[in-house]
């Protein structure tokens, strides 16, 4: 993180898969520590592709990306894991490990980071209790409903207290009550200093976090046709 609180900076970033046309073009923006961002846009606008760049699943085809004060483009592959551990991800399709229980799925980031077993059980149980899955702690993903899987995925993303949380349509499979609860969880994390980036096309969700900043993607480009969005062009003070 830089002194002005910048944690992510994209400079003229473009992304194409293979030889196809660019799915993201000319992205230039900055994310600041401790902010809550919504990423909106129609289906196919490039939200998931942009998130992939944010959680280092993809390198851009062009442009420069700086993450946590480090050039993410030239970052050696061996240093990616440490960088990734600072980012929690809620995947659109959950991506839970099928043969692991809810508990072990949530514990995964802690085990990957090398936490001692004795330090894992407590926090995992706490977070599962928080997302309302105490009674499903030993269940395998296949026996969980879509909403329950979503909550396990969220618990896994936040368990290691990441500096930035990236969520792709995190409320897509849950009822409105649970969606509100999850957003409150994100807000709570955000208040504790975690930068949150939520991709959604649910405009109601945007209204639930009044302090949030909004990025809108249109055909792979950041767009603000009405000038009414809270981000950009508004400059942070």
């Amino acid at each position: 993180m830089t002194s002005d609180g910048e944690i992510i900076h994209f400079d003229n970033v473009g992304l194409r898969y293979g030889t196809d046309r660019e799915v993201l073009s000319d992205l230039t923006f900055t994310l600041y520590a401790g902010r809550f961002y919504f990423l909106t846009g129609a289906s196919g606008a490039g939200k998931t592709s942009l998130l992939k760049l944010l959680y280092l699943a993809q390198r851009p085809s062009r442009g420069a990306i700086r993450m946590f004060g480090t050039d993410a483009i030239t970052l050696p592959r061996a240093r990616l894991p440490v960088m990734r551990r600072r980012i929690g991800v809620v995947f659109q399709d959950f991506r839970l490990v099928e043969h692991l229980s809810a508990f072990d799925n949530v514990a995964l980031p802690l085990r990957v980071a090398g936490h001692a077993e004795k330090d894992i059980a407590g926090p995992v149980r706490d977070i599962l209790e928080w997302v309302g899955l105490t009674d499903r702690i030993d269940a395998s993903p296949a026996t969980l409903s879509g909403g329950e899987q979503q909550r396990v995925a969220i618990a896994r993303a936040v368990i290691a207290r990441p500096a930035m949380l990236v969520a792709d349509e995190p409320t897509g499979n849950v009822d409105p009550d649970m969606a509100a609860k999850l957003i409150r969880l994100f807000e709570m994390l955000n208040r504790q200093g975690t930068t949150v980036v939520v991709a959604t096309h649910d405009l109601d969700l945007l209204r639930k976090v009044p302090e949030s900043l909004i990025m809108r993607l249109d055909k792979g480009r950041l767009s603000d046709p009405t000038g009414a969005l809270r981000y950009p062009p508004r400059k942070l003070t």
Partner: protein
Amino acid sequence: MRGPSVSASVIGRWFNAGSRVELIPQGRMSGPMPWVIAIMVAMTAIALAAGLALGNAVSAAKAEIDGGVTVQIIEPRADMRAQQATRAVEAIKTMPGVAGLRQVPQAELDALIEPWLGTGIAAATGSAIPVPALIDVRLNGPASAAQLAAIARRVTPVAPSARIDAQSNWLKPVFDAMVSLQVLAMVIVALLAGALAAAVLLAARSALGANRDTIEIVHLLGGTDAQVARVFQRSIGYDAAGGGAVGLLLALVVILSLGRRFDGLGAGLVDNGALVWSDWLILALVPVLATLLAMLTARLTVLHALRKML
């Protein structure tokens, strides 16, 4: 919600020792891999045992006959044969470099040809078969051409019917064949090691493909290549250790039963090929080395494949 403390000592390790969680689901000793390894280890151990036994046989026989020289007195008349043999013995025993010598008694010579010609020939035909007199000479070192020539110079004047041969010359073709078999055994061991590595490579690639999603998730959660590789390495290590133990057991059954059959032959060269304790130790190392080879192959294969992922 409280965050766990990070234990620096375990950073970089995959699932901690206290955890029974497995990233890659796999039953121990399930699938074909342990049995492929068992067969490989059994064949390797048998080939190695054969190579070691041949080596022992060659070494023992060489040590026995390297310094051996045979002086034959090829004289049909028995009285002259006996005279020349006596004079030859006298001439040789004072030579430098001679550790000992023995004139093979007539009874022993008769016993040597008895399997082919039977007994009682002299009684039946009225005359004995003229068998050359044999003098077995032991030199201090291997019988060199110079030493053979020196013996010839001393013996020929007193025993013109003498023929002098180094014993190692007679068995050289046999030794050469045995050494070739030994080399073949070692080549088979090397080929089997290569085949084992190839089998593990294919298994590791297949497991990588089958678990690609899980590996990708672990990567995105901050898992390192080394952590993922360790999971595969350990999984294949268990299979290799189990398969190796079974393979060694199979090999021991084969080696011991073959050993008992060869013991029954009572042939000197075969008896010399008995395995010694250091050979058994080497054989016991086969599954250990196979396990290490399998783990190393799995690790390198997985690391190589992971490098292609971001």
